[in-house]
């Protein structure tokens, strides 16, 4: 497989992409065979590809998660670049396409299903039914609550990793991960609302890292 390396030169210039076996061996060497087998066979949904979701998806792709289902309805906007993992070249593209491209550069054998759709009560039961682990990475409080409620109500075998409270410049150590129940994890400080606070990459990434780490722990503890 070859990727065009536009970053290195303006001319057609192709990078040789490692084979699947080479990439798998490198991950296995880092993580151990048993853990990598679990990561490679895992399937995770990331709902919302903004400051949380773009960071979560990249962290999971780097860990060698086998399959990512990405959902967003939005396009990359200039106001996203302060905290979301997109670049100037992605402006105007659907976030699903932009993130798929970024992941292909980092983890070319990660199977990415990217769906440009607005998730709602009506389509969540069907669109998220294949993913045993669901990351809530929306930005509006009502939408977060809708997704968490809908997933827990309609998908009895799914685990949800959600986020609440990562705005502002509060201390990093206020961001925590709490296991609310067998099926719900909550990351964030629980209080810092975007209403009245700005979002900063450094703090949003902390919360996204908590979510990605919770996902890896859930997979590591699975059989």
């Amino acid at each position, binding site marked *: 497989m070859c990727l065009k390396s536009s970053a290195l030169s303006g001319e057609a210039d192709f990078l040789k992409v490692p084979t699947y076996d080479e990439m798998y061996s490198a991950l296995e060497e880092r993580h151990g065979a048993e853990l990598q087998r679990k990561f490679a066979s895992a399937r995770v949904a990331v709902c919302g590809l903004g400051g949380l*979701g773009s960071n979560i998806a990249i962290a999971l792709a780097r860990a060698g998660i086998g399959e990512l289902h990405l959902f967003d309805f939005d396009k990359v906007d200039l106001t996203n670049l302060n905290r979301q993992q997109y670049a100037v070249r992605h402006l105007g593209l659907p976030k699903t396409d932009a993130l798929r491209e970024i992941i292909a550069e980092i983890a070319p054998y990660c199977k990415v299903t990217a769906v440009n759709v607005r998730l709602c009560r009506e389509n969540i039961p069907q669109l998220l039914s294949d993913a045993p682990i669901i990351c809530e990475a929306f930005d509006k409080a009502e939408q*977060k*609550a809708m997704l968490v409620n809908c997933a827990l109500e309609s998908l009895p075998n799914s685990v949800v990793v959600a986020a609440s409270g990562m705005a502002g410049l509060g201390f990093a150590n206020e961001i925590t991960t709490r296991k609310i129940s067998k099926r719900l994890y909550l990351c964030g400080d629980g209080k810092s609302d975007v209403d009245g606070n700005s979002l900063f990459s450094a703090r949003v990434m902390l919360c996204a890292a908590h979510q990605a780490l919770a996902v890896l722990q859930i997979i590591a503890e699975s059989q």
Partner: protein
Amino acid sequence: MVKVNGELFDYDGKTIAEIAELTGNSTDRIAVELNEEIVPKARYGEVVAKDGDVLEIVRFVGGG
């Protein structure tokens, strides 16, 4: 007594909707687990907490 987010309250016999209001929560920004099971939003007005129940009201704020 009913344990709500780790604290004990005299909420025996109250519905989830009543407890949400008493704790200052807007029902469209929360998820509620009663003894580790999700309470469907449509049932907030009829599910009643009883002595010994453990309630987690997960409150969402904006940002992502």
